[in-house]
């Protein structure tokens, strides 16, 4: 890595800071704009007495200026204190810690499925451009883009569970007749493997498949389109023409020259899709009664329990900013032509 690149990366990180700061301001305003008294939301139980609430109000600095309140808010966030959930009676932080693995596991498999489906199709559509296959991919990706994820999930449930009976019951993470094992990592499939229990792994994986497939549907269209477009640009480029002129075989031209150069925009799209997945999984988690952070946030929202909602919004947005930053930096390191937005 040379000096000018390091400088560009530092400059890029520097531009992400105001955005992160803005996100913090928005979530700060969010909890104060919400109906209800923030002190009550931070109270340990819904039936906390007036004396306790008064103490929390002083502790949170609600009797002080907005600016001081913001500083206190920053300190709380820095120490990982997101308040307490009225519904579970526990701190939001510990609720998130137990639920995050379920969400990550689901999103990871969904992401994997969408990559495995869309990239080969995108490459094939680019190689056989303007044939019936290309048209078919185009129609399929338009359908996938218009398909509401929760509707697609319900269609899967109907066919694979009700009709053909080959899928696991679409409720929760574990079959209802077994007692879930004590979490080691919190990832059901990894835990099962660590315990060396194949039967358990099969169950956990079976439960994951349908929600993951439903979630994958909305990532297929952007990935397929980007892969196709980028591959076409690459195939029409001068270096591919040159490679062909040297008499290199078509397979090698495609795999060694065209494809690696077409991957960069796809990589950027994939990163965006992955971070969107973490936020937009709300509907799927709700539909499949999946015990992740999305369902937790929306259930809290409906129960007017705002501390978890605020934490969810903050965490997802921060993740989004960091993800964009990482994609940008990795792109710049991998490809010297890439211009960092600074």
């Amino acid at each position: 890595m040379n000096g000018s690149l390091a400088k560009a990366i530092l400059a890029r990180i520097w531009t992400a800071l105001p955005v992160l700061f803005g996100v913090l301001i928005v979530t700060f305003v969010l909890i104060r704009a919400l109906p209800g008294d923030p002190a009550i939301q931070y109270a340990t139980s819904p039936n906390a007495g007036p004396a306790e609430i008064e103490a929390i109000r002083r502790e949170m600095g609600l009797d002080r200026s907005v600016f001081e309140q913001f500083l206190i808010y920053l300190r709380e966030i820095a120490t990982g204190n997101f308040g307490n959930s009225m519904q579970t009676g526990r701190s939001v932080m510990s609720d998130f810690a137990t639920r995050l693995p379920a969400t990550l596991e689901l999103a990871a498999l969904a992401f994997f499925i969408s990559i495995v489906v869309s990239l080969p199709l995108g490459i094939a559509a680019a190689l056989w451009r303007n044939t019936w296959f290309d048209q078919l991919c185009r129609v399929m990706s338009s359908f996938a883009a218009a398909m509401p994820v929760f509707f697609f999930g319900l269609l899967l449930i109907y066919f694979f569970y009700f009709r053909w009976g080959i899928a696991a019951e679409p409720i929760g993470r574990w079959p209802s007749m077994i007692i879930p094992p004590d979490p080691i990592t919190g990832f059901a499939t990894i835990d099962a493997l660590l315990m060396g229990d194949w039967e358990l792994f099969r169950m956990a994986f079976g439960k994951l498949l349908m929600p993951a497939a439903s979630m994958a549907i909305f990532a297929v269209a952007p990935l397929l389109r980007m892969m196709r477009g980028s591959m076409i640009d690459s195939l029409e480029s001068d270096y591919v023409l040159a490679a062909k002129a040297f008499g290199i075989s078509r397979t090698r031209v495609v795999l060694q020259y065209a494809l690696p150069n077409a991957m960069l925009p796809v990589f950027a799209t994939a990163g965006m899709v992955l971070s969107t997945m973490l936020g937009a999984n709300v509907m799927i988690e709700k539909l499949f009664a999946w015990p992740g952070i999305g369902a937790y946030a929306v259930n809290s929202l409906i129960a007017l329990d705002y501390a978890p909602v605020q934490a969810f919004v903050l965490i997802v947005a921060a993740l989004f900013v960091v993800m964009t930053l990482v994609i940008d930096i990795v792109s710049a390191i991998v490809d010297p032509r890439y211009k960092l937005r600074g």
Partner: protein
Amino acid sequence: MLSFADIRFILRRNLAGAVAAVLIVVLMIVAIIGPYIAPYDPLTTNLREVLRPPSGAYWFGTDHLGRDIFSRVIVAARLDFAIAIVAVSLSAIVGSAIGALSGYVGGWLDRILGRVVDVMMAFPLFVAAMALVAVLGNSVESIVLATAIINLPFYFRLMRAEISARRETGYVEAAIINGNSTAQVIFTFLVPNSLPPVIVQISLNLGWAILNTAGLAFIGLGVAPPTPEWGIMIQEGASMMISGQWWVVVFPGLALAMSVFCFSLLGDAIRDVIDPRRRS
């Protein structure tokens, strides 16, 4: 703006776009006259006709309260379309106006607005909509406002880019020399010339807005039962999918998917005409 000849050109070149345009017109008509042509009252329950499969009497079957699903699907079109149209118009008008100003004036105003929009874009759309509904309260008005706000950045960025690219052109200079005020230069010379990409965006956005409204209703935000709305109908039918009564979910789901599909096809078709380089 699109002239009649342009529209004919789109239709000739792009069959899918033409079909989508026709379907959208049909859906719009259904949305307007829906309540008058519905064979049954969409809210009247009939406990003797619960969960009947599609038949001559009930084209789309009945739900768990014996309500006619066909009537509910066509009455729901009005609410879903109205929310989407009002929200997208709001965000197109406000977003484009702020974007135009930002792109024309430049300087510190442009930098600050740019940062604000960056922050807005940091929130995934659906999560932002959820948070806004939490603040604004769980109502239809909140959904409209939330949808308008989350889509603002797209129009802001589009219009800003168009205007700053055109700011230095000869016709703008001529307009300034002729004594037009800044507002006149922006809104009578620059904005009309920058409209085509905004129109593409509006068509795509209408689809997303419908999807977003239905998604929020599905998780219990915004529109509340027993109002006929596609997302709510799908949510109410979700548990019946496991016991095999597919029609409760499938018909509102198809109506929803078809509307979104038509708007995105139309958007692609318009883009093909306006910007041949970005043909998908």
